[in-house]
């Protein structure tokens, strides 16, 4: 009885349908229950949240990744699927915590102060959430103190900083210094991204890595975890 429902959730993740009113990759799906409705049904039916996570969400995201690699899916398709997983994770979180299931870790992310550009940061946040990280998104134009505070408050092992301007990216170096001053630098990996940044710049300011896009961020986090 469980299987069809889990299969439906997986199908809708691949289709990138968060809610019933959403269109999918294929035509004619509008109005059909989507990930939100199906996960709620699954929980109501008493299906093991771990099973929903592993059998429906994780596997389907792997299929989505393969479709992207083959050129069948583009970024909007990936984001739609990742958003599905993000929404499902929000619904599952209380149950998973109760069952003692750990997420892949907290990831604090934000665009630095003085910079309002957040498209790239949002894409990374959605993709990381879809990949199973607990994302704490601070938004754009975030003061340095607020970032340090969030890292400490959430005891986050990962911090992602974004900037699109050469004038604002300098703050990334200040943040790394401030983490040192606060004595938490060795507890958090700092990843930076944004058009003017580079691996060279990451090395210069003492960040742990530079990510050219969300996919590289996910790959780097996998490497860091292992």
């Amino acid at each position, binding site marked *: 009885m469980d299987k069809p429902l889990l299969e439906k959730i997986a199908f809708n993740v691949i289709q990138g349908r968060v809610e019933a009113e959403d269109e999918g990759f294929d035509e004619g799906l509008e109005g059909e229950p989507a990930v939100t409705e199906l996960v709620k049904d699954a929980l109501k039916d008493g299906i093991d949240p771990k099973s929903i996570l592993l059998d429906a969400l994780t596997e389907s995201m792997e299929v989505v990744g393969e479709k992207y690699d083959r050129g069948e899916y583009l970024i909007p398709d990936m984001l739609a699927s990742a958003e599905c997983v993000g929404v499902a994770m929000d619904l599952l979180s209380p149950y998973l915590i109760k069952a003692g299931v750990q997420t892949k870790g907290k990831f604090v992310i934000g665009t630095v102060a003085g910079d309002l550009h957040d498209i790239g940061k949002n*894409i990374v946040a*959605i993709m990381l959430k879809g990949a199973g990280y607990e994302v704490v*998104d601070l938004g754009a134009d975030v003061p340095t103190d607020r970032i340090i505070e969030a890292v400490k408050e959430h005891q986050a092992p990962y911090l992602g900083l974004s900037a699109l301007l050469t004038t604002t990216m300098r703050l990334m170096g200040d943040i790394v210094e401030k983490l040192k001053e606060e004595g938490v630098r060795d507890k958090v990996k700092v990843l930076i991204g944004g058009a003017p940044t580079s691996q060279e710049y990451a090395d210069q300011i003492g960040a742990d890595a530079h990510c050219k896009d969300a996919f590289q961020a996910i790959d780097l986090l996998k490497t860091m975890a292992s």
Partner: protein
Amino acid sequence: MDFLRSRQSTMKSEDPVREPYREGIIVKPYERLSLEQVKWLDEASVKILEDPGIWCYNERAAKLFKGHGAKVWEEQEASSACWRVSFPRGLVREAVSRAPSRFVLGARRPENRLLLDAELPRVYFGSGSEANVWIDVQMEQFVSTNDSQVKIRVPRFRELRGDSALLCRAARLCERLEHLDFFIRPLNIQDPDVTSDNHDVNKFFASLNNITKHVQAGLTKLERLKDVVRMAEIIAGGREALRKNPIISFIACVFKSPLQIVDETADKVFAIVESGLPLVISSSPQGGSSAPIQEAGMVAQINAEILAGITLTQLIKDGAPVLYGSVPVRARLDDLHDLYGCPEFNQYNIDCVQMAHFYKIPCYSTAGVGDAKVPGMQATFEKLFTHLYMAMSGAQYIHYAFGLLDRTNSFCPVQAVLDNEQIGKIKHCLREPKVDPPIVEDTLRIVKKVMTSPHRLFARHARKAMHAGDVSSPYRFEVKGLEDKVLENALDYTIQLERMAAPHLDQATVDRIFNEIPGLLPGLKQAAE
């Protein structure tokens, strides 16, 4: 005279068109001339046809004009027989109004047919036109003289004389170019065994056996028209089937500018019109030598020539399907060769599109010709300059658009592939806007939804448009690094397309054609497996 109204009522009862046909692109026409200016030019053309009139070197045409009220007298000064014809304006107006404004150009595959409608600016792009040289492209590696570790790949070009095998290759490639809507052979065939006698049957067969889109060409020898028509009948499935689905049509440059009807071509016009197949009445004066260089003078003259040619077709056969064929060019003033990549070319051509629209006759127009001799920045500049502009004009049938280089002297398959990409983008750019109340309503819903979502990102909602083909793709041959590899990428893609199977006719049809039609080259005898 209420010319337009009388013309519209003439066409009302005629509607032979059934789907499917190629989509083309329906545009909102850009008009250069005001209606008043169009009428001034129309009046100027009519006056030219009255006085000085035309110099007609074909007796049958002169007699036909005379029989319908034209003032015709023998021209004493001419070295060969020549008749001066002064057209009363009523004769031209009446004849032109009888030309159909809407008809179909057929194709081997029904979905490749073209619907030409003078009252609808549906734009089709096609190839052309009988270049003598095929430009072959190969990449070659070069090593930097400063640093032997630095190597670059550079396109190298080689000229080949056009022949029937290369024409087959061109047709096969054009079959695969999704934005090419019709095929005018882009290459002349100069095989040792090709003579003026078997030229027509071989060029038509090489084309028809390698492409399923509409095939159009000039006629080299009047005597072989019957064989070409018979070939088309065999392919289309009989005489009546060919009439309903004219898979071939013809181009006749009946005027030698300025204002002279060519004897031999006029005979061909008689025969083609009598065959019932569609025909382009094409004129190509050169501003600065065979026509005035000034816009008004050029357009008044070419329009006069085309109107006289169309008049001839309608006097031969009432309602003969004919295209208004305008190829006005400008002379370079340093050597009096044609100059294509210049603003005047666009001005002349778009004016002619407006004239054709005024007469409600589908327009055969021109774009994509330039002076560049190889693919590259100059070629792209010149081609984009006319591809975009002429598409915006709403000309129904734009030839010369694929692969031509060095004016009309060379055809390059890689350039045709580049042009295909460019034309695809232009077609996309000129699509009708999708804005209506349900779409606006849907947009408002999405805006509300996104603005209440955590990241306020519209990317997910791009999918519907993306998958419906409403969102264009990046340039197919783009390179992300600091290198220009457009030609290399286009060459790779050309090779891929050329590897695809040829859409040959079936064995029985090919056998029948070879049995019935004399003069076909044995090397062309290929059939579908």
